[in-house]
């Protein structure tokens, strides 16, 4: 199942991916062994480099960021039923023990999908791939959340809101078109659905006065409903077009109602009373039996993030397979 990551320039996309990789490494080597992941060699090399850098206390360099055009992981979640089978059966490939989710990050901007916006046709394979995503992860950079109207950060956030809202409408339109095509060809398919996930990146940089103005406290709640309320209070103020178009998906016939919210932070070295010169250094955890020397980041949130997709990965494949089957048929017909 394809999944796309959207984020503004310098919103922390590469750092997010690096931390996600770090969480995958740790979570994927747990005793329970119900989550596994795989990455193509290109992505693995890049992510290893990011990860190594973070273990050295450094944020990803600009050169590394530039190398990312498409980067992917495959998440594998042990199917519940399979998990109950004897070990030797579970290990057989025919048992298809894992539901998979292909997580891809594309470095695209609003302009890249202009062709689709203007003509309704997505001819570039990368854009086609992007628009096929069933899961859309939107990074919202908390460092740009300001209530100071005359700052560049305020204007950047306004622009980002427009770009993401546009992209989401593009996703909805593409999905709707695909669904109509399936229906016209006599293929029975469920109403299209996109699973959005919002990651509030650089959450540690969110200013206290902003939170106070919005009537929020610093801690992110654990309860699902409270998390939604908390995150939406921020989105309502800073990316209202995005929030309204997520909800509007239902009107367009593409439900995006199952949104989930996560936050991401990575602790950096602070020197009292001093502004950091250049890029700040990542604080690392001390060595312990369960591992150490890792970047000190919101690991639990990343695990939540990985776990959030477990249900989706179990649920979605049939729909995607239908669509892929249809496309294969269409290609065969065209040939």
């Amino acid at each position, binding site marked *: 199942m394809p999944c796309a990551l959207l984020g503004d320039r310098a919103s922390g996309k590469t750092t997010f991916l690096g931390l996600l990789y770090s969480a995958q490494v740790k979570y994927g080597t747990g005793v329970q062994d119900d989550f596994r992941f795989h990455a193509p060699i290109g992505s693995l090399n890049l992510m290893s480099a990011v990860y190594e850098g973070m273990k050295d206390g450094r944020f990803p360099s600009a050169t590394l960021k530039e190398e990312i055009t498409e980067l992917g992981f495959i998440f594998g979640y042990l199917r519940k039923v399979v998990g109950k089978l004897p070990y030797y059966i579970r290990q057989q490939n025919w048992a298809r023990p894992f539901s998979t989710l292909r997580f891809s990050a594309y470095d695209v901007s609003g302009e890249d999908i202009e062709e689709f916006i203007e003509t309704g046709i997505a001819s570039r394979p990368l854009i086609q791939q992007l628009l096929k995503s069933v899961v859309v992860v939107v990074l919202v950079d908390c460092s740009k959340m300001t209530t100071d109207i005359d700052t560049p950060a305020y204007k950047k956030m306004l622009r980002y809101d427009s770009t993401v*809202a546009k992209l989401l409408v593009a996703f909805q339109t593409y999905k709707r078109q695909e669904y109509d095509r399936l229906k016209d060809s006599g293929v029975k398919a469920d109403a299209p659905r996109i699973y959005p996930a919002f990651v509030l990146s650089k959450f540690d940089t969110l200013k206290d006065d902003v939170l106070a103005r919005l009537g929020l406290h610093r801690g992110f709640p654990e309860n699902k409903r409270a998390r939604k309320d908390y995150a939406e209070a921020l989105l309502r103020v800073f990316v209202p077009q995005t929030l309204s178009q997520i909800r509007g998906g239902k009107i367009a016939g593409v439900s995006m109602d199952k949104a989930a919210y996560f936050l991401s932070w990575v602790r950096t070295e602070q020197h009292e009373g001093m502004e950091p010169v250049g890029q700040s250094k990542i604080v690392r955890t001390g060595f312990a039996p369960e591992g150490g020397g890792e970047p000190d980041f919101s690991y639990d949130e990343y695990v939540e993030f990985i776990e959030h997709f477990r249900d989706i990965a179990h649920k979605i494949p049939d729909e995607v397979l239908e669509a892929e089957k249809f496309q294969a048929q269409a290609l065969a017909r065209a040939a």
Partner: protein
Amino acid sequence: MPHIVIIGDRDSGKTTFLALLYAAQVKSGATRADDFRFHVDLASMEEISEVFQQLMSGSFPDSAAKEGISDINFHVGYRRSRLGILSRRRSKAWSPDTSASLHFVLLRNLDAEMSRFRSGSSLANVNLRDVLESDAMVILVDSTRLAVVGEENPHGTMTNYDGAVESLLTALQRSRARGDPKRFHPIFLFSKFDSVNKKALRRAKIEDVPPGVRETNRRAAYARALLETNLPKTIAKITDREVQGVRFAPPSYFFSRVATEAATENQRDRVRLLRGDDGGWELDYSADEYLALLERLRTIATEAGD
């Protein structure tokens, strides 16, 4: 999908009107109550979000943004109320009977367009069929141009505009067969009502503030007092009982205002933003008027069999 034509004099605020209509939807579509939702067509998204961005940055739409907008599609939906014990299934309660699709067509340079039309050419910038087959027309009345006795209005008069609107309505009337069951809905929107010359209101013997959106009759009387002096031909056309062809529905009236900071030597008028209840910035404008207008348009769409 009903076609709604927007007409207005030059600089009467047509693009700002659409941007404020979008802003009202963005705000209502992101509330905690989640009882209103809307979707913008992909083809409309680029332009409308651009003008929204400009307003939220404190600027009125620039000429490039204005030129970019010719038609916009919105799809709106209201949550079915009183679900009672079914409230847990709220997300499924977006019923078709409370939804509508609205296609706005913006007709620029009405005067020039009507001259072309009278000489036998088609309208230049928009699909003529969209205009002639439209279900409703939002007629913008620039409140700064309302006439004041004995004073020359620096913003100009409405005489030409009145003639052009009347011509367009006549063309529309002629294009439809007699006995056409489809009603045509005229909607008057007084733009820039916060900048109206109070003398124009005195002249019409009306108060400074129009009656609330729910006071339909009083509001109609208030608006008519202004229109009868300023757009006499238009209002006569719409209220003419001997009309052939198209049937006009009773007009509805809305008053738009958006708070501004006065222009200075180095800076044009700026849109004023204020702190909203949610802690963020929002436009200081007549949101209730826009929401009422949206509701009215939904009713029109339902009648048009959307």
